[in-house]
């Protein structure tokens, strides 16, 4: 018997899946001397064509997702709820797709510059995006794990995409080995949860979970570790700087943003649905993780000389801020996390794109000093970088401030509501940390504006695609800070609708 299933729920995933499956073929077809268009493709044109094709898939998916965001929630339920396309999933998918689109646009010239313009890049990227989209919506453990792997495995390869670079290879191997280890832990946790509760559905687990029982908690702990690795929270963070530094810059931007978006989606869903009965205990552990992430991330970023490494530590710090919203655990907190993820994606990709444009002749220029004099030679890049840094540091009226404000405000409101001073302290530590973070974010504009470029420096002109990325990030970072209210309201509603659905859904 064929179960009645809502295939329409898969709508946003389909274009991406088509891209992931067809793009490797396109690469092969175009590699021939004479193509069906009877004109051989040059390496460069091939890259552009593939990029545009992937972009097309992503944009179609984006449009479907945006429609879905405003429509009713749907469940793909084939005897067992597989994915839940609720507001949260749609929104996170939108963020992932935006991040991926910007990455694709920012990759074209960078790949040519580092002589790695293979078509497989886009195919792998699309597979990874597909995995992320399933990860944000997975409603049982099996889907969660498959999606996580579908997201990660292409990324392992992408991290090592610069075959000629030692650093890139090292990065890929490290990411792969440690990532596999983390996946193993996650899987073990899932196995225990399944063994104990007898179900893989998140909702069912949530009903049967016994916070008094040690094995239940063991499973929960291992799942949290596995997801903690994906979001690179302290103490599961050490791979991040090495991997971010070694990976091709466009991939780093992608890894630093979309992976976290998807993994935070999964984390929130697992915590809010499956592990809800153990929330209080888990939040205690997450509290420590959040504080450690913020503090260690910021303090270590201070002494980094390599921008990619610095941004890696800074992203660890941002995970700490985001965990604040997760710990708050209310709709308001989740809405704040969603908003911050959106903002974080734009400001991080903006910064990484600038670093990517600087790469030239196969060599990354990613030390802070490499930015010297950029305000003179490339004012647009300098402005975007400056605004991204200010936004990351949380200076008003940029979007970064608005995001942090919502996170900490949610924590304080919740703290008053339930009379929990630990949430208040969390907000204080967060605010203090964002003050510390200025010490290193500020160094970047300082070098760009107040240092003269070395005479040999001749930074590349951003291409058309890259200009689009820069301007998009610029506009987003400014507008989300000045007129954030409509988006935040949408998010509050989506979070509310999502919770409604999560509580109702069961097989």
């Amino acid at each position, binding site marked *: 018997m064929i179960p009645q299933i809502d295939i329409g729920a898969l709508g946003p995933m389909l274009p991406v899946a088509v891209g992931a499956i067809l793009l490797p073929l396109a690469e092969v077809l175009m590699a021939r001397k004479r193509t069906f268009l009877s004109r051989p493709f040059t390496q460069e044109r091939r890259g552009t064509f593939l990029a545009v094709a992937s972009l097309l898939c992503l944009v179609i998916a984006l449009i479907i997702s945006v429609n879905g965001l405003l429509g009713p929630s749907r469940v793909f339920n084939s005897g067992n709820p597989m994915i839940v396309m609720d507001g949260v999933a749609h929104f996170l998918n939108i963020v992932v797709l935006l991040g991926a689109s910007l990455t694709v646009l920012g990759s074209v010239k960078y790949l040519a510059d580092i002589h790695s313009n293979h078509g497989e890049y886009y195919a792998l990227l699309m597979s990874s995006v597909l995995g992320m989209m399933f990860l944000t919506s997975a409603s049982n453990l099996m889907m969660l794990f498959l999606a996580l792997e579908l997201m990660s495995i292409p990324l392992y390869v992408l991290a090592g995409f610069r075959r000629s670079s030692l650093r890139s290879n090292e990065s890929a191997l*490290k990411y792969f080995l440690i990532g596999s280890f983390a996946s193993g832990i996650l899987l073990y946790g899932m196995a225990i949860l399944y063994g104990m509760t007898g179900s893989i559905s998140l909702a069912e687990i949530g009903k049967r979970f016994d916070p008094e029982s040690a094995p239940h908690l*063991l499973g929960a*702990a291992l799942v949290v570790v596995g997801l903690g690795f994906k979001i690179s929270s302290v103490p599961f963070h050490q791979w991040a700087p090495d991997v971010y530094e070694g990976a091709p810059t466009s991939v780093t931007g992608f890894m630093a943003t979309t992976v976290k978006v998807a993994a935070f989606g999964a984390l929130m869903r697992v915590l809010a649905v499956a592990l809800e009965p153990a929330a209080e205990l888990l939040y205690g552990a997450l509290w420590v993780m959040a504080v450690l992430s913020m503090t260690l991330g910021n303090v270590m970023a201070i002494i980094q000389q390599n921008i990619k490494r610095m941004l890696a530590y800074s992203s660890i710090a941002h995970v700490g801020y985001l965990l604040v919203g997760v710990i708050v655990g209310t709709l308001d907190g989740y809405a704040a996390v969603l908003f911050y993820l959106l903002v974080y994606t734009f400001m991080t990709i903006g910064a990484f794109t600038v670093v990517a444009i600087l790469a030239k002749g196969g060599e990354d220029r990613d030390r802070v000093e490499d930015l010297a004099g950029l305000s003179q030679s490339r004012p647009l890049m300098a402005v975007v970088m400056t605004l991204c840094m200010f936004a990351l540091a949380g200076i008003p*009226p940029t979007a970064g401030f608005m995001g942090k*404000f919502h996170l900490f405000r949610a924590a304080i409101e919740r703290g008053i509501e339930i009379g929990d001073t630990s949430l208040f302290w969390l907000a204080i530590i967060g605010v203090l940390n964002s003050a510390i973070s200025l010490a290193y974010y500020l160094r970047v504009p300082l070098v760009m504006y107040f240092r003269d470029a070395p005479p040999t420096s001749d930074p590349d002109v951003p291409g058309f695609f890259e200009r689009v990325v820069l301007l998009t990030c610029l506009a987003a970072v400014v507008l989300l800070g000045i007129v954030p*209210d409509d988006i935040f309201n949408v998010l509050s509603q989506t979070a509310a609708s999502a919770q409604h659905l999560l509580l109702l859904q069961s097989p």
Partner: protein
Amino acid sequence: MLEHVNETIRWIPLLPLMGALVSGLWLIFARQELPRPLVIGLGCGAPMLSFALSVREVFRLATAFPAGERFFIDNLYTWISAGDFHAELSFLLDPLSAVMILVVTGVGSLIHIYSVGYMREDHRDDRGFQRFFCYLNLFTFAMLVLVLGDNLLVLFVGWEGVGLCSYLLIGFWYLDDHNAMCGQKAFIVNRIGDFGFLLGIFLLFWAFFEAGHPTIEFYAMREHVGLVAERTVTLPAWLGFLPGFPTWTLLTLAGLCLFVGACGKSAQLPLYVWLPDAMAGPTPVSALIHAATMVTAGVYMVCRLSFVYSLAPGASATIAWVGGLTAIFAATIAICQKDIKKILAYSTVSQLGYMFLAAGVGSYSAAMFHLMTHAFFKALLFLGAGAVIFGMQHEQNIEKMGGLRRYMPWTHWTFLIGVLAISGAPPLSGFFSKDEILLGVYAAHAMPGHMALWWIGLVTAGLTAFYMFRLYFLTFSGASRAPMQLQTRIREQPVVILMPLFLLAGLAIVGGLVGLPDAYGEALFSLPSSNSLHYFLDESVVSATHVVPPAREFALAGLAVLIAAGGAFFAVFLYYYRTDLVPRVTAALRPLYQLVWRKYYVDELYSLAVVRPLVRISDAFLYRTIDVRMIDRLGVDGTAGFVRGVADRGLKLVQTGLMQSYVFVMLLGSVLLIAYLVGGL
């Protein structure tokens, strides 16, 4: 009957923003400078239009409403509404912000005009001129947002915005690494203050949230502040050394947090260190940002939240004492400095201390009055100093000046007016405002140690007169100590620079009359309530009332003038008649002189106590030890092993040594997590 809603207000800040955007975007996309006249028209036109608009609106405000109902609201849109939190992006024009916008746009416009002359020859960077005006306009915008903001969050946006612009402008002459570092220092110190500020906002919001009125709008807060006055908080045990431990009122705590922010922005102890360094920027910037407008934001904020501080005596006392101590502390440093701008900078710190002293004892209108007059005469002094520096070919050391009276007569006269005004010579503006402050301190019987503060204020007045006259004589009188070839090239400045000086000098002379104390008005012109500024402002602030009989008031004023005159005469004696005595006096007081000359070694102390440990903790301990080395140690031969591993082992491409450690740390983390969850660690 006029509506309180007034949609013209938004154009007061928006005009400078548009000026900044046009010139900024042009620079980014066209990558060349607009024609000079256009830059000037745009750069100066925007703040001047804004000033004209401000005058018109303030006039309407003052005339159209009866006293007690004077305010305009301009609501742009809902900025944030999430949960119970609600913040509009809206502007409020009431007497308090009216005074501020007039100062900001008025003095600001003059400084913009002055900059045209001052920056005209700055060709160090081919687009510098336009960029300078772009930042200057942006600053004006941010400052106007700060003072017009209708709630704490909008105020905070402007608060950070001005910090940002000052950072950009201090580092403006960026060829110098030192300038850039100074800009960074300013920004970081400000951020430390902002941390307190943000906490204060959260605390206030918390209080009003609990009381059932989740709001951060000033007027709404003021209305409901009575509900939260009694709310106390229990301090954590490690704060046991504080007075009043363990319970404070929430308002005291919030007030103190906000004041930390004010300390950063307005350069009070112990966060004043950035302001003297900020003098590295171009002189018009020093005049605009670091004398007339931005640094007074802290004072404005305290006055704006006077309804909080009037209910938080602990916080008010702290403000008064910090202000008083800063005033005298900075004044002593100013005595020994040799850089003309540094002297003015310390003088600014000292005068800001005066304003906080006034705000702390509840004389908010006196604080605002002094803020206004100080803007006039300090801008005048800075611009005069700029003219001097310009004339001296960028020499800033007053020991190498002298005798400039002959070369630059107009600059000299305007500067003298500034010196007299800041020293409190009657009937110049500084006399009235300083007098009102001292009177307020004298009469503040509720304040612990108010007489000590009063004496501090008096002594500071004497010190101020002394160091300002020292500056004046060393710069303008006697024989020139400049090299000969430089002497022949010293010229009076062009009209575009002198014109703002004249206007500011005029304001420094007559500006005090808007706040002519009642006693004087009564005695001289038989006007009742002649202190119109005071009555105008009293609608916005919750002032403490104090009654001093007119006779006592005149006596006190006389005493202040006497002390100031004493300081001035001492300077005349030392630096005009007996210049030979100066080296002998400094030699006799060598250790003391050294201590003051090195600014009490505060910078060195901060470097030793804060900056270096932080870097060391970050670098040596956290990064190298915990993140890398500790793990290597466990691995016995981490780094060496890595090198060998690459060199002579099979692992040619990848160093895997650290990876095992990474996995190990993950494992450790997991075990701890499990132990916490399962074992109830």
